[in-house]
């Protein structure tokens, strides 16, 4: 493979076919050429490969658990780099019930968690996720939810008559943007489906800090009301030493519902699911999940889910 002379005119003109630096044929051997095409093809092959995960055949099966690394207090990486949080503790409790499995944890961004779940790199995903039909179709949904998220609703202090989504809708109040894919987003979407004539303007955002920013934005009037998980209000605004405690007096907060949160399994983890769901059920029934909820959220979230048959109920 030899090098074709460059074709620019303004330098000494190559058109007078001089010997290029690597002379024809004998310059770079055929082997180097084949080597380069092999590398290029390998990188293409990566894109199109399918995959199936095969559990290792040792006596205990290894379950790879992927969790959202920035989901404090549900799942996060603490300061010395170890997985921590409510859902991590739940899985550790499940591990005690199921000695035949051992669990390894991998902390990632939510996008990466589900990319890996889809490709079989992980078996179980802890993402504090809301249920949607598309998600249930895409992944294996265990029969028992892993937790409950309590739904908070707040406006500026002076909006005393606004207590529910329909009040906000009728008053034409503007809703702070919600991170795409978050449970609150679907709660509002579901409300809009049910109230076509009294809609709330729902905007999605990619900004993962949307809850924390909502407090300041509503207080200063950028938006009129917002939906946030309860623990954001409790730890940031309600708490005396909360980072945003200065907004406490400017806002009016109330709990307007609760939603089940789900963990998802990769499609080919049916065997594990058969053990996992009953273990979760047992932990729920014997109150372990409630204790863990108090430990991480300060309150027992399950008490707010009045009707356990529904995926979420709100006032």
């Amino acid at each position, binding site marked *: 493979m030899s090098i074709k002379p460059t074709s620019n005119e303004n330098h000494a003109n190559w058109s007078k076919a001089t010997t290029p630096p690597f002379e024809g044929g004998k310059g770079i051997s055929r082997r180097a050429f084949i080597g380069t095409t092999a590398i290029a093809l390998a990188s293409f092959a990566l894109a199109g490969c399918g995959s199936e995960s095969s559990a290792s055949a040792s006596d205990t099966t290894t379950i790879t658990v992927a969790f959202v690394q920035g989901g404090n207090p549900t799942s996060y990486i603490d300061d010395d780099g170890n997985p921590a949080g409510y859902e991590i503790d739940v899985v550790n409790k499940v591990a005690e019930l199921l000695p035949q499995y051992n669990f390894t944890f991998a902390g990632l961004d939510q996008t990466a968690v*589900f990319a890996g779940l*889809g*490709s*079989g790199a992980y078996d179980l995903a802890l993402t504090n996720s809301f249920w949607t039909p598309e998600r249930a179709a895409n992944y294996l949904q265990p029969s028992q939810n892993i937790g409950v998220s309590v739904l908070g609703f707040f406006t500026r202090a002076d909006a005393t008559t606004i207590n529910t989504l329909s009040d906000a809708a009728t008053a034409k109040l503007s809703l702070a943007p919600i991170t*795409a894919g978050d449970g609150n987003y679907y709660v509002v979407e579901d409300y809009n489906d049910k109230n076509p004539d009294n809609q709330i303007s729902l905007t*999605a955002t990619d900004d993962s800090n949307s809850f924390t*920013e909502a407090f300041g934005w509503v207080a200063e009037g950028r*938006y009129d009301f917002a939906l946030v998980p309860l623990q954001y209000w409790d730890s940031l605004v309600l708490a005396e030493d909360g980072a945003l405690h200065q907004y406490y007096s400017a806002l009016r907060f109330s709990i307007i519902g609760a939603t089940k949160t789900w963990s998802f399994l990769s499609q080919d983890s049916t065997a594990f699911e058969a053990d996992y769901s009953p273990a979760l059920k047992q932990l729920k029934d014997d109150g372990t999940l409630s204790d863990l909820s108090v430990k991480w959220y300060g309150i027992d979230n399950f008490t707010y889910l009045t009707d356990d048959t529904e995926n979420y109920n709100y006032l």
Partner: protein
Amino acid sequence: MKVSFSAILASFTSALAGVPVTLKIVAVSFLVAFVLGFLMAVVNKNRVPVLSQISKVFISFMRGTPIIVQIFLIYNSLPSLLNAVFVTFGVPIDIFDVDPIFYAIAVFALSETAILAEIFRAALNGVDNGQLEAAECVGLTIPQGYLHIILPQALASAVPVLGNAVTDLIKTTSLAFSMSILDVTGIAKIQGAASLDYIDAYLAVALIYLILVLIFENAFKLLERRLNAHTQPLNAPAR
């Protein structure tokens, strides 16, 4: 890596609706950056006292810091700051009903200005200083000289690099969704979030950006050929 082509197609068709928004952001940001960038390059080249120091710091900051930080400063923090100022001084402007697309354009225009200022600096160095003197000798004012003589020549040599700048800008605008703007990426991500299967959404988006990039790349190749017509020798040797 499970990839379902039907999901990609679905994301592709729905995300197409975001193309006009993406193009609007790219077009307006690039135009603003083109003017500001060129002025900044001229200011730097002539070492205008205060202005050139400011523009050097601006260029260094914009090129040195990640764009998500710039987005955060302009979209998340600036409005609250301005509001506080307006309220204390009783200025009757309600900063909060500004359409987010203006924030996006502001962010991408400013970051693109820094990039184009560098491109034009290199291009201006390529233009022989005698050109401006010649322009003045035939009675043009300095600004006219720059506009009619220097800019076209600088443009001719800068076009290939400008082409890259535009294609990079198209990809960078995919971050507009963090300012809740429904561009190509925004629509695809909302769909991806519903099914929590982001890969198909991202591949669809990659496909759309690939098409846009190829269109712009060829457009710039044509522009380059036309603009460089004056540099080709008349009897270019038969290749």
